[in-house]
């Protein structure tokens, strides 16, 4: 199982890999425009595959305030 950490809300979840970034976001009901997907210290584009051994961070980029 791959480990997914959603920063900002500090939630975690798991998925069966391998799975494409685009599919992960779709399953989590997340609009790609609103997040970055990070593995290690690198960014992943939507076409990339995430394997069972991977840990990724989904980082929302939308901030509120003024």
């Amino acid at each position, binding site marked *: 199982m791959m480990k997914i950490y959603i*920063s*900002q809300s500090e939630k975690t979840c798991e998925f069966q890999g391998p799975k494409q970034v685009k599919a992960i976001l779709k399953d989590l009901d997340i*609009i790609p425009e609103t997040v*970055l997907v990070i593995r290690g210290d690198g*960014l992943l584009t939507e076409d990339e595959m995430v394997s069972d051994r991977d840990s990724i961070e989904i980082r929302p980029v939308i*901030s509120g*305030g003024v």
Partner: protein
Amino acid sequence: MKCRKCSDKAVLSIPRHNTALCGLCLTEYVQIQVERAIGREKMCTKENKILVAVSGGKDSLALWDILLKLGYHADGLYVNLGIGQYSVRSRKKVEVFAELRNAMWFSQDATNDEGTGIRELADLVRRPACAACGCIKRYHFNRMAVDQDYDVLATGHNLDDEAARLMGNVLHWQQEFLEKQGPVLPASMEGFAKKIKPLYRLTEREIAAYCVVNGIDYIVQDCPLATGSRLLVYKEALNVVEQASPGSKQSFYWGFLAQQAEKFKLDHQSMSERDIALLHPCEECGQPTSSAMCSYCKLMAKTKTHKKVS
């Protein structure tokens, strides 16, 4: 996915430009957009002293980083609003950032004598926290810029911020706010600093990606008081539209700017002329305002009377 410019591995796809970029090309793209914004809108020159309003978040730190890299004289100003651990951590991010770059910055404490933070303040005057916070920050940023002789005050407002604000202003037809929604607000009179938004051509996602690629350590958690803010609702709506039709955000905001520019050409009285006709010094603090007391001093006066009662 490959970088459309150099065929290296892409790190970010940018649907609104129908492109994808590697880390180096993304960095170059972001810097070019900022230079273009500064040049086209005549924001400032390399001879100017710029004060950057920094919060420890992605936008303001990216802006500061870009301005320094492009060779501008840019110092930072952080305003501590006393939002518990959030303020402590965000201030630390600013401190580390500045230290690494040997950059000059100020820290302004906006909690009052008894250490009351913005949360308590907002409760006290029954205003949304973001409104009170925005008012206090604007006051301190402007004051510092004027007192320390900065030529311009730069903020990290991005395309998403401006498009969301425009959506709010249009939904409620707030004509008087629409007029002030440009990326540059001139120093219309003595006591008002010129304000610029060099990131208005870039989306939040592009700026966040710039931070990750360039190792800028920013505070990822959003301000706890912003939860459920109006602006977030508009951003969400715009992102749904953007996803279905890439480029919508920029055509909405940039289209508005183009129309405003046309309007000003026809309008003989410039914004600063109109401002001067309306503004005079606040009777409390001397900063320009259109009523007897500026909104910051009104807020402070309210907190004082509330305290006397309680």
